[in-house]
Protein backbone atom coordinates (compact mmCIF):
# COMPACT_ATOMS: atom_id res chain seq x y z
CA UNK A 1 0.00 0.00 0.00
CA UNK A 2 2.62 2.47 1.13
CA UNK A 3 4.83 1.63 -1.84
CA UNK A 4 1.92 2.13 -4.24
CA UNK A 5 1.03 5.48 -2.65
CA UNK A 6 4.60 6.75 -2.86
CA UNK A 7 4.84 5.65 -6.52
CA UNK A 8 1.60 7.52 -7.20
CA UNK A 9 3.08 10.56 -5.48
CA UNK A 10 6.28 10.25 -7.56
CA UNK A 11 4.16 10.15 -10.71
CA UNK A 12 1.78 13.01 -9.94
CA UNK A 13 4.04 15.49 -8.13
CA UNK A 14 5.87 16.64 -11.31
CA UNK A 15 2.62 17.06 -13.22
CA UNK A 16 1.58 20.38 -11.67
CA UNK A 17 3.17 21.35 -8.37
CA UNK A 18 6.73 20.18 -9.11
CA UNK A 19 6.39 20.75 -12.86
CA UNK A 20 9.90 20.75 -14.40
CA UNK A 21 9.06 23.58 -16.80
CA UNK A 22 7.23 26.00 -14.54
CA UNK A 23 9.06 25.33 -11.27
CA UNK A 24 12.61 24.56 -12.40
CA UNK A 25 12.35 26.42 -15.74
CA UNK A 26 13.96 23.46 -17.56
CA UNK A 27 13.43 22.53 -21.20
CA UNK A 28 12.32 26.04 -22.19
CA UNK A 29 14.06 26.10 -25.57
CA UNK A 30 12.00 23.33 -27.09
CA UNK A 31 8.86 24.46 -25.25
CA UNK A 32 9.12 27.72 -27.17
CA UNK A 33 10.04 26.24 -30.51
CA UNK A 34 7.63 23.39 -31.11
CA UNK A 35 4.41 24.83 -29.70
CA UNK A 36 3.14 26.67 -32.78
CA UNK A 37 0.58 23.90 -33.22
CA UNK A 38 -0.89 21.21 -31.03
CA UNK A 39 0.22 18.19 -33.07
CA UNK A 40 3.91 19.12 -33.06
CA UNK A 41 3.66 19.84 -29.32
CA UNK A 42 2.08 16.41 -28.74
CA UNK A 43 4.70 14.61 -30.83
CA UNK A 44 7.52 16.40 -29.03
CA UNK A 45 5.95 15.62 -25.64
CA UNK A 46 5.56 11.92 -26.48
CA UNK A 47 9.10 11.68 -27.91
CA UNK A 48 10.62 13.33 -24.86
CA UNK A 49 8.60 11.16 -22.48
CA UNK A 50 9.73 7.98 -24.25
CA UNK A 51 13.36 9.10 -24.18
CA UNK A 52 13.34 10.16 -20.54
CA UNK A 53 11.57 6.97 -19.35
CA UNK A 54 13.91 4.66 -21.27
CA UNK A 55 17.00 6.62 -20.26
CA UNK A 56 15.96 6.60 -16.60
CA UNK A 57 15.31 2.83 -16.76
CA UNK A 58 18.67 2.03 -18.37
CA UNK A 59 20.68 4.37 -16.14
CA UNK A 60 18.91 3.00 -13.08
CA UNK A 61 19.64 -0.61 -14.14
CA UNK A 62 23.38 -0.02 -14.34
CA UNK A 63 23.50 2.60 -11.57
CA UNK A 64 25.70 0.50 -9.27
CA UNK A 65 28.34 0.12 -11.96
CA UNK A 66 28.62 3.64 -13.37
CA UNK A 67 32.00 5.02 -12.27
CA UNK A 68 31.51 8.49 -10.77
CA UNK A 69 34.26 10.00 -12.87
CA UNK A 70 32.49 9.27 -16.19
CA UNK A 71 28.86 9.21 -15.06
CA UNK A 72 27.77 12.27 -17.09
CA UNK A 73 29.37 10.94 -20.26
CA UNK A 74 27.74 7.54 -19.78
CA UNK A 75 24.33 9.15 -19.25
CA UNK A 76 24.70 11.47 -22.27
CA UNK A 77 25.73 8.55 -24.51
CA UNK A 78 22.65 6.59 -23.46
CA UNK A 79 20.34 9.59 -23.92
CA UNK A 80 21.93 10.54 -27.23
CA UNK A 81 21.55 7.04 -28.66
CA UNK A 82 17.91 6.87 -27.62
CA UNK A 83 17.27 10.24 -29.29
CA UNK A 84 18.80 9.02 -32.55
CA UNK A 85 16.60 5.92 -32.44
CA UNK A 86 13.46 8.00 -31.79
CA UNK A 87 14.43 10.40 -34.58
CA UNK A 88 14.86 7.50 -37.01
CA UNK A 89 11.49 6.03 -35.98
CA UNK A 90 9.75 9.38 -36.53
CA UNK A 91 11.38 9.69 -39.95
CA UNK A 92 10.17 6.22 -40.86
CA UNK A 93 6.62 6.33 -39.60
CA UNK A 94 5.70 9.99 -39.06
CA UNK A 95 7.62 11.59 -41.91
CA UNK A 96 5.58 14.81 -42.20
CA UNK A 97 5.75 15.51 -38.48
CA UNK A 98 9.48 14.82 -38.36
CA UNK A 99 9.96 17.33 -41.20
CA UNK A 100 8.17 19.99 -39.17
CA UNK A 101 9.96 19.21 -35.88
CA UNK A 102 13.23 19.26 -37.86
CA UNK A 103 16.16 19.84 -35.53
CA UNK A 104 14.24 19.86 -32.28
CA UNK A 105 13.94 16.10 -31.97
CA UNK A 106 17.73 15.81 -32.02
CA UNK A 107 17.86 18.55 -29.41
CA UNK A 108 16.01 16.32 -26.92
CA UNK A 109 19.53 15.08 -26.15
CA UNK A 110 20.36 18.50 -24.74
CA UNK A 111 17.03 18.96 -22.95
CA UNK A 112 17.89 19.58 -19.31
CA UNK A 113 14.89 17.60 -18.08
CA UNK A 114 16.29 14.30 -19.36
CA UNK A 115 19.78 14.68 -17.93
CA UNK A 116 18.29 16.26 -14.81
CA UNK A 117 16.13 13.23 -14.06
CA UNK A 118 18.79 10.60 -14.81
CA UNK A 119 21.41 12.50 -12.80
CA UNK A 120 19.34 13.47 -9.78
CA UNK A 121 16.89 10.56 -9.49
CA UNK A 122 17.59 7.50 -11.64
CA UNK A 123 21.24 7.28 -10.60
CA UNK A 124 20.28 6.64 -6.97
CA UNK A 125 16.94 4.80 -7.23
CA UNK A 126 15.76 1.36 -8.44
CA UNK A 127 14.38 1.07 -11.99
CA UNK A 128 10.64 1.13 -11.23
CA UNK A 129 10.51 4.36 -9.18
CA UNK A 130 13.01 5.93 -11.61
CA UNK A 131 10.86 5.19 -14.63
CA UNK A 132 7.72 6.35 -12.81
CA UNK A 133 9.47 9.59 -11.83
CA UNK A 134 10.67 10.04 -15.43
CA UNK A 135 7.17 9.37 -16.75
CA UNK A 136 5.75 11.99 -14.38
CA UNK A 137 8.32 14.56 -15.49
CA UNK A 138 7.80 13.75 -19.16
CA UNK A 139 4.04 14.12 -18.74
CA UNK A 140 4.51 17.37 -16.78
CA UNK A 141 6.63 18.77 -19.61
CA UNK A 142 4.06 17.48 -22.10
CA UNK A 143 1.23 19.13 -20.19
CA UNK A 144 2.87 22.56 -20.43
CA UNK A 145 3.63 21.99 -24.11
CA UNK A 146 0.05 20.96 -24.83
CA UNK A 147 -1.44 23.93 -22.95
CA UNK A 148 0.82 26.44 -24.74
CA UNK A 149 0.50 24.65 -28.10
CA UNK A 150 -3.31 24.61 -27.84
CA UNK A 151 -3.42 28.34 -26.95
CA UNK A 152 -1.10 29.28 -29.78
CA UNK A 153 -2.84 27.17 -32.41
CA UNK A 154 -6.32 28.20 -31.31
CA UNK A 155 -5.66 31.93 -31.17
CA UNK A 156 -3.11 32.00 -33.98
CA UNK A 157 -5.12 30.12 -36.60
CA UNK A 158 -8.53 29.41 -35.03
CA UNK A 159 -7.86 25.68 -35.36
CA UNK A 160 -7.12 22.78 -33.02
CA UNK A 161 -5.27 19.79 -34.50
CA UNK A 162 -6.06 21.26 -37.90
CA UNK A 163 -9.85 21.40 -37.31
CA UNK A 164 -11.40 24.86 -37.58
CA UNK A 165 -12.88 25.75 -34.15
CA UNK A 166 -13.27 29.53 -34.38
CA UNK A 167 -14.86 30.75 -37.65
CA UNK A 168 -12.40 33.06 -39.43
CA UNK A 169 -13.46 36.59 -40.31
CA UNK A 170 -12.23 36.21 -43.87
CA UNK A 171 -14.48 33.20 -44.32
CA UNK A 172 -17.56 34.95 -42.95
CA UNK A 173 -17.02 34.23 -39.23
CA UNK A 174 -16.04 36.63 -36.47
CA UNK A 175 -12.53 35.57 -35.47
CA UNK A 176 -9.44 37.43 -36.67
CA UNK A 177 -6.30 35.30 -36.11
CA UNK A 178 -3.60 36.81 -33.92
CA UNK A 179 -0.52 36.22 -36.02
CA UNK A 180 1.66 37.14 -33.04
CA UNK A 181 0.62 33.79 -31.53
CA UNK A 182 2.53 31.98 -34.30
CA UNK A 183 5.76 33.84 -33.54
CA UNK A 184 8.23 32.82 -30.84
CA UNK A 185 7.59 35.81 -28.49
CA UNK A 186 4.02 34.68 -27.81
CA UNK A 187 5.38 31.47 -26.27
CA UNK A 188 7.46 33.60 -23.90
CA UNK A 189 4.36 35.60 -22.91
CA UNK A 190 2.21 32.50 -22.38
CA UNK A 191 4.91 30.66 -20.47
CA UNK A 192 5.54 33.73 -18.32
CA UNK A 193 1.85 34.07 -17.57
CA UNK A 194 1.67 30.38 -16.70
CA UNK A 195 4.61 30.59 -14.29
CA UNK A 196 3.12 33.74 -12.74
CA UNK A 197 -0.26 32.03 -12.27
CA UNK A 198 1.32 28.96 -10.66
CA UNK A 199 3.49 31.00 -8.31
CA UNK A 200 0.49 33.11 -7.29
CA UNK A 201 -1.36 29.90 -6.43
CA UNK A 202 1.61 28.47 -4.52
CA UNK A 203 3.64 31.45 -3.25
CA UNK A 204 6.29 29.15 -1.73
CA UNK A 205 7.45 28.34 -5.31
CA UNK A 206 8.57 31.92 -5.93
CA UNK A 207 12.35 32.43 -5.88
CA UNK A 208 13.83 34.93 -3.47
CA UNK A 209 14.96 38.00 -5.39
CA UNK A 210 18.68 37.85 -6.18
CA UNK A 211 19.06 41.56 -5.43
CA UNK A 212 16.83 43.93 -3.44
CA UNK A 213 14.97 46.31 -5.76
CA UNK A 214 16.87 49.52 -6.35
CA UNK A 215 15.09 52.35 -4.57
CA UNK A 216 15.16 55.86 -5.93
CA UNK A 217 14.32 59.26 -4.49
CA UNK A 218 14.72 58.21 -0.88
CA UNK A 219 17.24 59.53 1.54
CA UNK A 220 20.07 57.22 2.42
CA UNK A 221 22.09 57.21 5.59
Amino acid at each position, binding site marked *: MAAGASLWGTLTAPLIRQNPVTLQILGICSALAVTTSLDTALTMAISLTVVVVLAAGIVSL*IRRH*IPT*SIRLIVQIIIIGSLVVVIDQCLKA*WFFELSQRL*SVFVSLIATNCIVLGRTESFARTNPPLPSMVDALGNGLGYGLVLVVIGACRELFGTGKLLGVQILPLAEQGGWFTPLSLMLLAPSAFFLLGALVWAMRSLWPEQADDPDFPPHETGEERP
Partner: protein
Amino acid sequence: MADLNPFSLWRRFLNTPNDNRAKTLAVAFLVSAACALLVTAATVLLRPIQAENRAAEQQARLEALIAAVPGISELIAASGGEALSTVVVDLDRGAAATGITPETLAAALAEQGNWTALAPADDIAGIGNRPDYAQIYLLRSGEAVSLAILPVVGSGYNGRIQALLALDGDMRRLAGIAITEQMETPGLGARIEEPLWQQSFAGKQLFDESGATRFAVARGPGRGEFEVDGITGATRTSNAVTNMVRFWVGPKGYGPLMAAIRRGEF
Protein backbone atom coordinates in the same frame (compact mmCIF):
# COMPACT_ATOMS: atom_id res chain seq x y z
CA MET B 1 45.40 -21.52 -11.82
CA ALA B 2 43.41 -18.69 -13.26
CA ASP B 3 39.64 -18.99 -13.10
CA LEU B 4 38.35 -18.87 -16.67
CA ASN B 5 34.67 -19.53 -16.05
CA PRO B 6 32.94 -16.59 -17.81
CA PHE B 7 30.22 -16.28 -15.14
CA SER B 8 32.61 -15.92 -12.25
CA LEU B 9 34.77 -13.58 -14.33
CA TRP B 10 31.69 -11.42 -15.00
CA ARG B 11 30.79 -11.46 -11.30
CA ARG B 12 34.31 -10.49 -10.35
CA PHE B 13 34.13 -7.62 -12.86
CA LEU B 14 30.86 -6.41 -11.34
CA ASN B 15 32.31 -6.62 -7.83
CA THR B 16 35.33 -4.51 -8.72
CA PRO B 17 35.04 -1.09 -7.08
CA ASN B 18 33.70 1.59 -9.41
CA ASP B 19 36.73 3.86 -9.15
CA ASN B 20 39.00 1.11 -10.49
CA ARG B 21 40.56 2.40 -13.73
CA ALA B 22 40.11 -0.87 -15.64
CA LYS B 23 36.45 -1.05 -14.68
CA THR B 24 35.91 2.59 -15.71
CA LEU B 25 37.36 1.84 -19.14
CA ALA B 26 35.40 -1.39 -19.43
CA VAL B 27 32.10 0.27 -18.50
CA ALA B 28 32.73 3.09 -20.97
CA PHE B 29 33.51 0.55 -23.68
CA LEU B 30 30.50 -1.66 -22.96
CA VAL B 31 28.06 1.25 -22.84
CA SER B 32 29.43 2.72 -26.08
CA ALA B 33 29.30 -0.66 -27.80
CA ALA B 34 25.72 -1.28 -26.73
CA CYS B 35 24.65 2.20 -27.84
CA ALA B 36 26.47 1.87 -31.17
CA LEU B 37 24.67 -1.40 -31.78
CA LEU B 38 21.30 0.19 -30.95
CA VAL B 39 21.81 3.18 -33.23
CA THR B 40 23.17 1.09 -36.09
CA ALA B 41 20.30 -1.37 -35.87
CA ALA B 42 17.71 1.42 -35.90
CA THR B 43 19.34 3.19 -38.84
CA VAL B 44 19.82 0.09 -40.96
CA LEU B 45 16.43 -1.47 -40.26
CA LEU B 46 14.47 1.72 -40.88
CA ARG B 47 16.37 2.93 -43.95
CA PRO B 48 14.12 1.28 -46.58
CA ILE B 49 10.99 2.83 -45.04
CA GLN B 50 12.64 6.24 -44.93
CA ALA B 51 13.76 5.95 -48.55
CA GLU B 52 10.18 5.17 -49.54
CA ASN B 53 8.97 8.25 -47.66
CA ARG B 54 11.51 10.42 -49.42
CA ALA B 55 10.57 9.04 -52.82
CA ALA B 56 6.88 9.69 -52.11
CA GLU B 57 7.69 13.22 -51.04
CA GLN B 58 9.73 13.82 -54.18
CA GLN B 59 6.78 12.68 -56.27
CA ALA B 60 4.42 14.96 -54.31
CA ARG B 61 6.76 17.94 -54.82
CA LEU B 62 7.01 17.17 -58.52
CA GLU B 63 3.24 17.20 -58.77
CA ALA B 64 3.01 20.40 -56.71
CA LEU B 65 5.64 22.05 -58.93
CA ILE B 66 3.74 21.13 -62.05
CA ALA B 67 0.47 22.33 -60.53
CA ALA B 68 2.04 25.68 -59.60
CA VAL B 69 3.12 26.55 -63.16
CA PRO B 70 0.51 28.91 -64.61
CA GLY B 71 -1.77 27.40 -67.20
CA ILE B 72 -0.39 23.92 -66.77
CA SER B 73 -3.55 22.24 -65.54
CA GLU B 74 -5.33 23.39 -68.75
CA LEU B 75 -2.52 21.90 -70.82
CA ILE B 76 -2.76 18.59 -69.01
CA ALA B 77 -6.52 18.58 -69.29
CA ALA B 78 -6.29 19.42 -73.01
CA SER B 79 -3.94 16.55 -73.73
CA GLY B 80 -5.99 14.13 -71.71
CA GLY B 81 -4.23 13.22 -68.50
CA GLU B 82 -1.03 11.32 -69.25
CA ALA B 83 0.79 14.34 -70.65
CA LEU B 84 3.96 14.17 -68.60
CA SER B 85 6.51 11.82 -70.09
CA THR B 86 9.56 10.57 -68.22
CA VAL B 87 12.76 10.42 -70.24
CA VAL B 88 16.29 9.39 -69.31
CA VAL B 89 18.71 11.69 -71.12
CA ASP B 90 22.42 11.48 -71.88
CA LEU B 91 23.72 14.84 -70.67
CA ASP B 92 26.81 15.04 -72.93
CA ARG B 93 24.96 14.21 -76.13
CA GLY B 94 21.84 16.12 -75.15
CA ALA B 95 19.63 13.32 -76.39
CA ALA B 96 17.58 10.47 -75.00
CA ALA B 97 19.83 7.82 -73.53
CA THR B 98 20.06 4.55 -75.41
CA GLY B 99 19.45 1.39 -73.43
CA ILE B 100 18.74 3.04 -70.09
CA THR B 101 15.18 3.28 -68.82
CA PRO B 102 13.93 4.97 -65.63
CA GLU B 103 13.90 1.49 -64.03
CA THR B 104 17.54 0.74 -64.83
CA LEU B 105 18.82 4.26 -64.14
CA ALA B 106 19.63 3.60 -60.49
CA ALA B 107 21.70 0.54 -61.42
CA ALA B 108 23.51 2.50 -64.16
CA LEU B 109 24.38 5.32 -61.78
CA ALA B 110 25.80 2.85 -59.27
CA GLU B 111 28.64 2.30 -61.74
CA GLN B 112 31.53 4.73 -61.46
CA GLY B 113 31.98 4.74 -65.24
CA ASN B 114 28.70 6.57 -65.74
CA TRP B 115 29.90 9.62 -63.80
CA THR B 116 32.07 12.46 -65.08
CA ALA B 117 34.61 14.11 -62.79
CA LEU B 118 34.37 17.88 -63.15
CA ALA B 119 37.42 20.13 -63.43
CA PRO B 120 37.45 22.71 -60.60
CA ALA B 121 36.95 25.56 -63.11
CA ASP B 122 33.77 23.94 -64.47
CA ASP B 123 32.42 22.81 -61.12
CA ILE B 124 30.69 26.02 -60.02
CA ALA B 125 27.98 24.09 -58.20
CA GLY B 126 30.61 22.33 -56.08
CA ILE B 127 29.40 18.79 -56.72
CA GLY B 128 32.69 17.15 -57.80
CA ASN B 129 31.16 14.41 -59.94
CA ARG B 130 28.25 14.64 -62.31
CA PRO B 131 26.12 11.71 -63.49
CA ASP B 132 26.09 11.18 -67.25
CA TYR B 133 22.42 10.32 -67.24
CA ALA B 134 19.45 12.04 -65.66
CA GLN B 135 15.76 11.37 -65.50
CA ILE B 136 13.77 14.37 -66.70
CA TYR B 137 10.09 15.04 -67.24
CA LEU B 138 8.66 16.61 -70.38
CA LEU B 139 5.26 18.06 -71.06
CA ARG B 140 4.23 18.40 -74.68
CA SER B 141 1.57 20.38 -76.43
CA GLY B 142 1.24 18.75 -79.81
CA GLU B 143 4.77 17.79 -80.88
CA ALA B 144 6.65 20.63 -79.22
CA VAL B 145 7.93 20.51 -75.65
CA SER B 146 6.05 23.08 -73.58
CA LEU B 147 7.66 22.41 -70.22
CA ALA B 148 10.72 20.50 -69.03
CA ILE B 149 11.35 19.51 -65.43
CA LEU B 150 15.01 18.91 -64.66
CA PRO B 151 16.41 17.53 -61.39
CA VAL B 152 19.45 19.51 -60.22
CA VAL B 153 21.87 19.27 -57.32
CA GLY B 154 24.36 21.66 -55.79
CA SER B 155 26.30 22.04 -52.58
CA GLY B 156 24.87 24.47 -50.06
CA TYR B 157 26.14 25.83 -46.78
CA ASN B 158 25.58 22.68 -44.71
CA GLY B 159 25.23 19.99 -47.34
CA ARG B 160 23.62 19.03 -50.60
CA ILE B 161 20.70 20.97 -52.06
CA GLN B 162 18.50 19.06 -54.47
CA ALA B 163 15.84 20.73 -56.52
CA LEU B 164 13.62 20.39 -59.55
CA LEU B 165 13.84 23.18 -62.13
CA ALA B 166 10.91 23.79 -64.44
CA LEU B 167 11.76 25.47 -67.77
CA ASP B 168 9.36 26.88 -70.34
CA GLY B 169 9.30 25.37 -73.81
CA ASP B 170 11.69 28.00 -75.20
CA MET B 171 14.35 26.76 -72.70
CA ARG B 172 15.20 30.35 -71.83
CA ARG B 173 12.72 31.14 -69.12
CA LEU B 174 12.21 29.54 -65.69
CA ALA B 175 8.72 28.32 -64.95
CA GLY B 176 9.38 27.34 -61.35
CA ILE B 177 11.61 25.59 -58.86
CA ALA B 178 10.96 23.12 -56.07
CA ILE B 179 13.61 22.40 -53.46
CA THR B 180 13.38 18.70 -52.72
CA GLU B 181 16.19 18.23 -50.23
CA GLN B 182 18.32 20.65 -48.22
CA MET B 183 20.13 20.84 -44.89
CA GLU B 184 20.55 24.61 -44.62
CA THR B 185 20.37 26.50 -41.33
CA PRO B 186 16.80 26.44 -39.96
CA GLY B 187 15.27 29.92 -40.10
CA LEU B 188 17.93 31.29 -42.48
CA GLY B 189 19.10 29.22 -45.41
CA ALA B 190 16.29 26.71 -44.91
CA ARG B 191 13.90 29.45 -46.03
CA ILE B 192 14.63 28.35 -49.59
CA GLU B 193 11.86 25.84 -48.85
CA GLU B 194 9.28 28.61 -48.53
CA PRO B 195 6.69 28.48 -51.33
CA LEU B 196 6.54 32.29 -51.64
CA TRP B 197 10.25 32.51 -52.44
CA GLN B 198 10.07 29.59 -54.85
CA GLN B 199 7.17 31.24 -56.67
CA SER B 200 9.37 34.26 -57.41
CA PHE B 201 11.40 32.09 -59.82
CA ALA B 202 8.50 31.82 -62.27
CA GLY B 203 9.03 33.96 -65.37
CA LYS B 204 12.70 34.82 -64.71
CA GLN B 205 14.96 34.79 -67.78
CA LEU B 206 18.07 32.61 -67.68
CA PHE B 207 20.07 34.17 -70.52
CA ASP B 208 20.50 37.60 -72.08
CA GLU B 209 20.53 38.23 -75.87
CA SER B 210 24.15 37.23 -76.25
CA GLY B 211 23.40 33.88 -74.64
CA ALA B 212 25.37 34.52 -71.43
CA THR B 213 23.81 33.10 -68.27
CA ARG B 214 22.48 36.04 -66.28
CA PHE B 215 20.13 34.38 -63.78
CA ALA B 216 21.08 35.06 -60.14
CA VAL B 217 19.72 35.10 -56.64
CA ALA B 218 20.37 38.74 -55.74
CA ARG B 219 21.87 40.11 -52.56
CA GLY B 220 18.83 41.89 -51.21
CA PRO B 221 15.83 42.53 -53.44
CA GLY B 222 16.11 41.16 -56.96
CA ARG B 223 16.04 43.66 -59.83
CA GLY B 224 15.07 43.10 -63.42
CA GLU B 225 14.11 40.01 -65.34
CA PHE B 226 17.13 37.93 -64.32
CA GLU B 227 17.19 38.18 -60.52
CA VAL B 228 15.11 36.77 -57.69
CA ASP B 229 15.21 38.20 -54.15
CA GLY B 230 18.06 37.06 -51.94
CA ILE B 231 17.42 35.58 -48.51
CA THR B 232 18.55 37.83 -45.69
CA GLY B 233 21.26 36.28 -43.54
CA ALA B 234 21.80 33.41 -45.96
CA THR B 235 24.27 34.72 -48.53
CA ARG B 236 26.07 31.39 -48.85
CA THR B 237 22.81 29.53 -49.47
CA SER B 238 21.64 32.18 -51.97
CA ASN B 239 24.94 31.92 -53.84
CA ALA B 240 24.69 28.14 -53.78
CA VAL B 241 21.28 28.30 -55.48
CA THR B 242 22.62 30.76 -58.09
CA ASN B 243 25.58 28.51 -58.85
CA MET B 244 23.43 25.38 -58.91
CA VAL B 245 21.05 26.88 -61.49
CA ARG B 246 23.90 28.35 -63.57
CA PHE B 247 25.81 25.07 -63.60
CA TRP B 248 22.88 22.94 -64.64
CA VAL B 249 21.68 25.22 -67.46
CA GLY B 250 25.28 25.54 -68.67
CA PRO B 251 27.34 23.41 -71.07
CA LYS B 252 28.31 20.78 -68.47
CA GLY B 253 24.73 20.45 -67.25
CA TYR B 254 21.59 20.37 -69.37
CA GLY B 255 22.96 22.88 -71.93
CA PRO B 256 23.23 20.37 -74.82
CA LEU B 257 19.80 18.98 -74.03
CA MET B 258 18.24 22.45 -73.92
CA ALA B 259 19.83 23.29 -77.27
CA ALA B 260 18.39 20.10 -78.73
CA ILE B 261 14.92 20.94 -77.42
CA ARG B 262 15.20 24.46 -78.88
CA ARG B 263 16.07 22.94 -82.27
CA GLY B 264 12.94 20.84 -81.94
CA GLU B 265 14.78 17.50 -81.81
CA PHE B 266 12.71 16.17 -78.93
